[in-house]
């Protein structure tokens, strides 16, 4: 799949190497903001199929809704999740994945599914969409907002029937959505540091010697990203 142009340029900018990043962080950056990427509608996912992409767009929009302040969509959370699943996280590179797998073990014993995160999304989205077709005659993304809300609530309360190896779907989706809202923008989400600005987290400033004993006083500076971009 050919990459749309903006991706190549954005990659180039972010991949400019640690040296470039360090320079921009220390000197006053020429551009306080990176160039605006292509709109989400034109994004060509690296991992998701078109159907999965629609699901992830609608699901993350419910988990962190848009409103007076940016939500998951404006923060480009779906892009973050797509890129994570295409990376070592998606393929569980760091995890112990050897069998035997007892997928229906007591949840307190942790991840026991034989599936990787990328596989959980693939099979899980298909299962949820099939259930939506069965109960509401349309895939999740095509349901009315109120119905989507009900399905998401059911999913979060384990009321959508899923086989044990997929039971981690909702927690994984919610975790990755929050990651995409709050991780450094270099991972594709938290666009314009929307998540950090929303709560007042200053990002990668990491130097507060003069501030630690100013108690109960608002911190005056906005967030900065690893690239040196300022919010």
């Amino acid at each position, binding site marked *: 799949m050919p990459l749309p142009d903006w991706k190549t340029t954005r990659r180039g900018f972010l991949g400019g190497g640690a040296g470039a990043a360090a320079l921009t962080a220390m000197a006053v950056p020429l551009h306080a903001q990176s160039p605006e990427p292509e709109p989400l509608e034109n994004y060509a996912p690296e991992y998701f199929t078109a159907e999965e992409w629609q699901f992830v767009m609608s699901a993350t929009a419910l988990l962190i809704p848009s409103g007076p302040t940016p939500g998951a969509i404006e923060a480009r959370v779906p892009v973050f999740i797509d890129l994570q699943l295409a990376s070592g996280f998606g393929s569980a590179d760091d995890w112990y994945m050897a069998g*035997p797998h007892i997928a229906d073990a007591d949840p307190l014993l*942790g*991840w026991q599914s034989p599936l990787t995160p990328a596989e959980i999304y693939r099979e899980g989205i298909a299962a949820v969409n099939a259930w939506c077709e069965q109960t509401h005659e349309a895939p999740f993304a095509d349901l009315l907002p109120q119905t989507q809300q009900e399905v998401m609530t059911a999913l979060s309360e384990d009321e959508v029937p899923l086989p044990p190896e997929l039971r981690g779907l909702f927690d994984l989706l919610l975790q990755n959505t929050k990651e995409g809202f709050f*991780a450094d923008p270099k991972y594709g989400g938290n666009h314009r540091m929307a998540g950090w600005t929303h*709560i007042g987290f200053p990002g990668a400033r990491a130097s507060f010697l003069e501030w*630690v004993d100013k108690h109960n006083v608002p911190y005056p500076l906005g967030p900065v990203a690893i690239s040196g971009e300022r919010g």
Partner: protein
Amino acid sequence: MARTEPKKDVVIVGLGWTGSIMGIEMAKQGLEVLALERGADRYTVPDFRYPDVIDELKYGVRFGFMQKPRNSTVTIRRTLQETALPYRQLGSFLPGDGVGGAGIHWNGHNWRAMENEFILRSYVEDNFGADIIPEDMTIQDWGVTYAELEPHFDRFEYMLGLSGQAGNVNGQIIEGGNPFEAPRSRDFPLPPLKQTYDATLFADAARAMGYHPFPRPAANASGVWTNEYGMQLGPCNYCGFCERYGCLNYSKASPQTCILDALRRMPNFSYRTNSEVLRVDLAEDRQTATGVTYWDEEAQEEVFQPADIVMLCAYSLHNVHLMLLSGIGEPYNPATGEGVTGKNYAYQMNGGTTLFFKDKLFNPFIGAGANGMSMDDFAINQIDFAAEGFIGGSYITAGVTNGQPIRGIGLPSGTASWGEEWKTAITEWYGHSMSIGSHGSNMAYRDCYLDLDPTYTDRHGRPLMRMTFNWKPNDIRMTQFMRSKIEPIAESMNPDTWQSSYKGEGAQYDVRPYQTTHNVGGAIMGDDPNTSVVNRYLQAWGQHNLFSLGAAAFPQNIQYNPTGVVGALAYWAADAITRDYLPNPRPLV
């Protein structure tokens, strides 16, 4: 066929905190010392450099500096009847990996234990009677006393450049320090860190109730410091990215900032990375170790490294795993209580109360790893075990160390975890909550132990180690007692709302949420070869040229974070080896 390397005087397994201390202390004796480290090499620059290290996703959430379960993990079960399953993804504890070990990404809460913790069984029996010890509780004395360790605590703390305030110097109680602490021979090397707002509010409230708060002892330098090896630290900038990260500022005490540059300059010291030790090799009569066999990742082959002395410094869990794989000590059997290797695995019993204040702003992203205020009014030496119905104690503490948002934003219980309600709540409450925690002891039990798993293997085909562990009523009573002391402090601070989280009756060990990387026991020290793996000098009872460093030696867990004691024991062992063992190698007891 394994390659064989030229013999060394000392081979050290693992180059984290204990490996670095033993490395430099042995090299100073003129010995040829080689350290084998399974992970990568690490330097402050480039590995912990600003701004790249300020990456919550990579290091805080995906555990960039920690052990990868794919390469090394354990299986876990809660009872003898349950089938243990692999700890596939990191959660409850986060062992280190690479040069510096977990010493690069700790918080730096660096404590001494109480005098009575080293003689716990005798203390209980003498003061309250043996009959208050539950039948399945297997607590023991350590075989070493606080008084013997004091000079070594002192040395470790001066090597770290510890920031804090003494409360007891040679028996003299000092205002503002911890009046209940065991006597120290002198004050801290550096004054306490500055305090954040939450810690100050907690300390004021505790003082008003007649308690004795004091600054948490912090291995984050409050000023400039030069240690005995000529290594230099600069003042901490409260960056808010301490635990789980390497220090960007040369302020957190770590093998890198305190030892390694000095050690690398010594011509008789060398180290190899990407070299995972697979087993300790024993002589035919099994009375001595002949060296170790490791996996050379680059050459993709096994290597035999002969040595006169073998030192296991691989972190508690890996030391025990290597011993079980190498047939060192008789494996512990929970059915009979016989055998020693793997016995008395213990953890840490923590709990806490979170307070929410609409009108107070805590700026949680400002914090060092270990700033904060603590109190020891309910420490293990302040409690009448017979009257309270449990054995143990806690320190109680407050002090924010980071406000990293992925790792969680405290919200009043009942708040939705997603959607509009969550999104509004996080703006309302981020920076408006603080916690008061209880950090408590965990006793040892007959059925909490480590052995080899019958089913799961690692990438080298070796059995994984199996952890059998659960929470026990004694320790749950302890933490509930702490709750009854913390909640009134919280209420006296008039928060808008507050909530508690302490283990309750029937609590089961949950491997998912992070708790602590304070895994102790399994290769415990003591004065009897029938009940311990190593003697009081951390020397294996069965092989006098084999030493096991680290928290595996703890017969049960103390109420504090372990590294202060781990460091003191390392200097204590190094001293015994230097003075007594090297001139005449033999069992020291």
